[in-house]
């Protein structure tokens, strides 16, 4: 079984602060991990992914995430945050195995950055 947990449903920051959105996962084998963002009224867009290799991955829009196998986490970070970062962020795990593809999403974290 595989699962993704995003414990903070709502995160509020002031512009210029550092943001960190938490993501933990449960999967018995090596996971492929992703972050996607959904701006209000829009569909999901890819931010970054970890497949293998360097545990710190950089993505679009100045975001980065660190894969930590020791505590099964893949937290998303950005500094400084900008008001345009206000959106819903989804962490996702690909662990279908074989040829099956089954990307499981967390419940999402709604980020509000005030100017």
């Amino acid at each position, binding site marked *: 079984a595989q699962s993704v947990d995003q414990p903070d449903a709502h995160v509020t920051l002031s512009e210029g602060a550092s943001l960190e959105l938490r993501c933990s996962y449960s999967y018995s084998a090596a996971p492929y991990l992703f972050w996607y963002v959904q701006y209000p009224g829009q569909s*999901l867009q*890819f931010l970054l992914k970890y497949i293998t290799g360097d545990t710190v991955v950089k993505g679009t829009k100045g975001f980065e995430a660190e894969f930590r196998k020791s505590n099964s986490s893949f937290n998303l970070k950005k500094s400084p945050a900008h008001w345009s970062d206000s959106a*819903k962020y989804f962490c996702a795990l690909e662990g279908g195995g074989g040829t099956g593809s089954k*990307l499981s999403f967390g*419940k999402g974290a709604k980020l509000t950055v005030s100017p």
Partner: protein
Amino acid sequence: ETAVFQTPNYHVTQVGNEVSFNCKQTLGHDTMYWYKQDSKKLLKIMFSYNNKQLIVNETVPRRFSPQSSDKAHLNLRIKSVEPEDSAVYLCASSRDRKNTLYFGAGTRLSVL
């Protein structure tokens, strides 16, 4: 850049009707998906196709059936809609499991 096209954008219908949603991708990807996003923005995979073959079929009611004519198209039919089917249906594609999903704009279904 929009490369996954969904129609219609919105659909309002009554309980018991049949609806069909279309999805086409122009990225040359082999894998396509249908996801359901509910009113709380929770995302759940429904189906996954690789090169016209069904590879993932999550526990969804039997009234939902995917249809793929070629690897660029994946449609979704709902035979007899129920109120709980009201949601946004997102189509996506990817090259393979390790790769980025590209999402369409979604089809918002309202069942009255």
